């Protein structure tokens, strides 16, 4: 225990904390805590009324226990009682407990709100502050409803104390953040703006924060704050540092307020009024000038505070993006920081320069620092700083320095931290594509990427290199030669095999003239990798082989032998087997003409934004990335379709769309595939090795219809694997396959229910045309009404969407509704049907009753058709606690001490339907020796008894 303890010193609390600290083990700690909890519980339950001090002490102990990480499930009421104590210290502990352990219990919220209301009306500033702090800390919707209109009144009232104003301003800010719809705008807004002129800098500081949030919500209402903020800022930056007394922090005048004012100004464009604008420019210049002055103190706090203001000023300069001189000065200032001995400043300079690089005024100035940034990449010891350097190199890259930057990034990649490799790969791929003048460089760069960091090269990257090679005939021969050589490496990455397989399959003929890369050599080289590869790669290689048969008739027999082998024709994987069977058949029956048509070289891909860029943007989040898509992005050969400005202007909202796998119709020249798919009855477009081209649902292409018919069997099997798991619980995973996971959360009240269905995309590719509906079988119609809200038709890779189902139970029912899901993944239509776990027992309300009542009703329900009994063997270990939990989960009340045999379980509840209510009694008798159960259900309705018995007996 420390020698000095401040405040009121609750000795019992200090002793308890000491005890906990002296515990040698976690077990000892838990034991001590449980002892204390038992003690507190008995005190709270005891007959003797506790005095305020004891109550406070115990509540404080509970709080301490909670903060140690243990659950606390009582004491809330005592804490609420403390709120209405007239002793400050008790009230304070009560508020602290409420702030930390918010409980959504509605009764308590009402009591808490009452106590807060009393304190707000008390006119005692310390009490008012406690109440406001509590509202700001909890910030719940209920509190917003109760106080959002009251607090503005306190804030602008003439007689409110300064400290209360400060609390009220930030309290309102918090409520506006959690429930903006509940914070009313009104005549008080003008008066809030005038708080910027307040004498008390603390009030101004708090008010500035509030005004900034409100200005974002309705900028026009707060326009007048611009001139006031500029005036205030100007007074601060020109003041001598002693003027502001205690608001001067290590010789820097009001740094927090300055930062906030600069941030408020970033809600608006540069001021239109010329005088105001020049006054602001002066302020910004003064701040920049101060950075050049010798420091007034050696303390790091001094330079931090000064630079905090400087960086915020630079943010404003970048935000305005209108004053070239200021932008260039900012850039030079950051350039100095790039070489500062403080790691923090180097980090921030790199970060801030990144945004400067995107301004046309300062882009060139940023570029002059390239050597320093490259050096940072090589020498910084902290990965977070190196990450910033990568970002900045990416942002400053243009045609003039692309080769240097890409080379540096590639060499950094060899030793880069695993955490940032994928991002570097994406960046290199984008830069190489964007600034490629000569596409041999581009191909080399991507192959290098695969060599250095193959595991981090995502699908998008290698899809893209293939698109580009297909679209540019000047690079095809080079690409074929390069991949051929790269494939000779003893341990080449699987991604290289994919790229190699695809490119040789399309363009192997361009290098076949050389005896060192004759068709047979090419084939043997590819096939030597076959057995080391995963299924998707093998599938791709099989497609490359059939393309070889068309390109090189001389290897047809060799390839047919391979296809014919048992390891292909009888492969356990359906996809591989199907491809082998079909390709073999195709090569045997089709004439050379047909083969040539079906297996024709891929037509150019339509112009599209790089999917890699989309991926990077997704990774970084919009707005975070310097916008580098410009006309040079386009690498497709057909320049007549080149519409740079249009694409850049229109693309931003759809950037998230992964354009690669789907999204656009193929050019008309894709007809050969259509033919082949039709004749072969295959479910995959095998001439398109990657399914790169599958058109979207919207395109009325014959191709799509053919495929979707084939891949969507007329009736989908309804999955009910997990159905019975939901009998006794409401949440969990309902369904999962390789693509999709469906999770459920449900709640029921009387005869109504609501289910939240979560659809999670497990892949990295979008699901398109997603839809899901609920169907009721004939029998179920009229018994259960399910209303499904609509669901977003697109689910991004890795994302999850939610659908809400509202249900009403009309009468008792036995069947279950079916959830039908349809979506398009990589061109193929997916159909899934899952039995929805909505069962009759979900509409139970538990009923507590005495032993006497129970047996009386039990006798009343004695008619033979009212009782259903089942004797069955237990499927799970017979654990009493698990059984209890299941019965409770089933929805009935578990009645203790009713059955004379304590080993038996007895429960009661009422099924609520719209038409009627059905009382229900149940009894479960375990026989542990025989591992058997006897379950008896009695209800007033035979169908209900039967259904409930069926449902529950499956659970043990």
């Amino acid at each position, binding site marked *: *225990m*420390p020698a*000095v*303890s*401040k*405040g*009121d*010193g609750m*000795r019992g609390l*200090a002793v308890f904390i000491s005890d906990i*600290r002296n515990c040698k083990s976690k077990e000892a700690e838990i034991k001590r805590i449980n002892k204390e909890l038992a003690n507190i519980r008995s005190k709270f339950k005891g007959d003797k009324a506790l005095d305020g*001090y004891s109550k406070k002490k115990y509540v404080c102990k509970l*709080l301490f226990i909670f*903060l140690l*990480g243990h659950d606390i499930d009582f004491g809330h009421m005592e804490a609420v009682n403390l709120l209405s104590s007239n*002793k*400050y*210290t*008790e009230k*304070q502990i009560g508020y*602290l407990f409420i702030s930390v352990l918010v409980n959504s219990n509605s009764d308590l919220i009402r009591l808490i709100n009452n106590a807060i209301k009393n304190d707000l009306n008390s006119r005692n500033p*310390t009490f008012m502050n406690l109440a406001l702090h509590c509202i*700001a800390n909890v*910030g*719940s919707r209920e509190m917003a409803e109760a106080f959002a209109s009251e607090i503005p009144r306190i804030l602008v009232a003439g007689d409110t104390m300064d*400290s209360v104003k*400060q*609390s009220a301003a*930030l*309290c309102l*800010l*918090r409520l506006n*953040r959690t429930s903006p719809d509940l914070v009313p705008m009104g005549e008080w807004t003008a008066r809030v703006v005038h708080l910027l002129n307040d004498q008390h*800098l*603390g009030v101004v*500081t*708090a008010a500035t*924060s509030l005004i900034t949030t409100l200005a*974002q919500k309705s900028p026009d209402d707060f326009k007048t704050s611009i001139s006031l903020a500029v005036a205030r800022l100007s007074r601060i930056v020109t003041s001598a540092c002693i003027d502001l007394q205690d608001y001067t*922090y290590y010789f820097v005048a009001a740094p*927090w*307020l300055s930062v906030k004012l600069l*941030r408020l100004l*970033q809600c608006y464009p540069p001021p239109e009024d010329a005088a105001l604008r020049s006054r602001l420019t002066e302020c910004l210049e003064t701040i920049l000038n101060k950075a050049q002055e010798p420091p007034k103190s050696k303390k790091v*706090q001094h330079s*931090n*505070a000064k*630079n*905090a203001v400087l*960086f915020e000023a630079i943010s404003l300069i970048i935000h305005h993006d209108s004053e070239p001189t200021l932008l260039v000065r900012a850039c030079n200032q950051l350039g100095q920081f790039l070489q500062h001995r403080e*790691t*923090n400043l180097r*980090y*921030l300079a790199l970060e801030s320069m990144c945004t400067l690089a995107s301004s046309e005024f300062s882009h060139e100035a940023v570029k002059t620092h390239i050597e320093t940034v490259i050096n940072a990449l090589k020498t910084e010891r902290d990965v*977070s*700083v190196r*990450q910033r350097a990568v970002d900045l190199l990416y942002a400053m890259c243009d045609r003039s320095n692309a080769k240097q930057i890409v080379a540096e990034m590639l060499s950094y990649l060899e030793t880069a931290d695993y955490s940032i490799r994928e991002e570097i790969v994406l960046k290199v791929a984008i830069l190489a594509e964007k600034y490629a003048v000569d596409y041999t460089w581009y191909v080399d760069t991507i192959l290098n990427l695969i060599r250095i960091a193959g595991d981090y090269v995502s699908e998008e990257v290698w899809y893209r290199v293939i698109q580009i090679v297909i679209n540019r005939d000047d690079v095809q021969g080079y690409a074929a030669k390069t991949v051929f050589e790269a494939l000779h490496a003893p341990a080449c990455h699987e991604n290289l095999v994919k790229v190699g397989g695809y490119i040789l399959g399309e363009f192997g003929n361009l290098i076949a003239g050389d005896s060192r890369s004759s068709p047979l050599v090419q084939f043997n080289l590819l096939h030597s990798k076959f057995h080391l590869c995963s299924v998707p790669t093998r599938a791709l290689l099989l497609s490359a082989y059939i393309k070889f048969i068309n390109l090189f008739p001389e290897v047809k027999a060799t390839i047919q032998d391979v296809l014919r082998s048992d390891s292909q024709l009888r492969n356990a994987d359906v996809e591989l087997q199907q491809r082998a069977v079909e390709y073999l058949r195709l090569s045997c029956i089709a004439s050379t003409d047909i083969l040539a048509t079906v297996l024709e070289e891929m037509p150019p891909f339509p112009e599209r934004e790089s999917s890699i860029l989309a991926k990077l943007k997704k990774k970084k*989040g919009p*707005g*975070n990335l310097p916008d580098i898509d410009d006309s040079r992005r386009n690498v497709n050969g057909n320049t007549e379709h080149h519409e740079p400005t249009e694409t850049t202007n229109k693309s931003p909202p759809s950037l998230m769309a992964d354009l690669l796998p789907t999204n656009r119709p193929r050019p008309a020249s894709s007809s050969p595939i259509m033919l082949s798919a039709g004749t072969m009855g295959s479910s995959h477009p095998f001439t398109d090795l990657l399914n790169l081209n599958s058109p979207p649902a919207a395109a009325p292409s014959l191709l799509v219809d053919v495929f979707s018919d084939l891949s969507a069997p007329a009736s989908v099997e309804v999955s009910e694997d997990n159905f019975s798991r939901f009998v006794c619980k409401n949440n969990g995973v309902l369904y999962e396959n390789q693509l999709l996971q469906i999770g459920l959360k449900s709640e029921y009240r009387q005869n109504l229910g609501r289910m939240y269905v979560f659809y999670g995309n497990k892949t990295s590719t979008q699901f398109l045309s997603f839809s899901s509906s609920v169907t009721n079988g004939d029998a179920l119609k009229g018994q259960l009404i399910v209303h499904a809200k609509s669901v977003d038709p697109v689910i991004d890779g890795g994302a999850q969407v939610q659908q809400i189902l509202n249900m009403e139970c009309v009468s008792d029912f036995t069947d279950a509704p079916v959830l039908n899901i349809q979506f398009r993944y990589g061109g193929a239509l997916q159909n899934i049907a899952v039995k929805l776990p909505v069962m009759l027992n979900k509409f139970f309300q538990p009923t507590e009753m005495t032993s006497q009542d129970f047996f009386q009703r039990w006798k009343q329900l004695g008619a033979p058709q009212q009782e259903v009994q089942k004797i069955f063997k237990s499927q799970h270990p017979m654990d009493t606690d698990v059984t209890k939990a299941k019965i409770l989960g089933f929805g009935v009340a578990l009645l203790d001490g009713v059955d004379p045999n304590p080993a038996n379980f007895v429960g009661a509840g009422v099924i609520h339907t719209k038409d009627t209510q059905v009382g229900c009694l149940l009894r479960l008798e375990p026989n542990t020796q025989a591992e058997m159960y006897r379950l008896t259900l009695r209800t007033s309705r035979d169908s209900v008894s039967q259904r409930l018995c069926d449902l529950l007996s499956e659970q043990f």
Partner: protein
Amino acid sequence: VAVNHCLLMQFMLLFSRQGKLRLQKWYVPLSDKERKKISRDLVQTILARKPKMCSFLEWRDLKIVYKRYASLYFCCAVEDQDNELITLEIIHRYVELLDKYFGSVCELDIIFNFEKAYFILDEFLLGGEAQETSKKNVLKAIEQADLLQENIIELHTDRGGCTMAK
């Protein structure tokens, strides 16, 4: 591009070199489970960092600003575009307030008087924003509260209240 200019602190954590959480203040609504997970992950991440490394790091979609004082780490999570340096000085000012109040504060003061640490924080930061940056004003508010408390303690001297600092 809509940029959010009103950036609030998301949470503040104080923890020891052994990874024990000493104070946690959450300015965004999160479930208890999420809070525990965040604290656990973040404490591990920060303890794994070497001294002299940058005080800022990107973590999930947040920016973490942290600094070690003796045996305690002070750590704030702010939004990505927030001002890192001013957050660092928020931490420092809070340390100064604790120091002034307890008289060269140490970890034990915060353990045994955790409620005070929370009260001081509430006077300084509210809803994740600086409410009062003047050290004098914050301490004045806390001392006024203590005066109110001392009146109470008179009534309870028989229970053996600890010695008072003043």
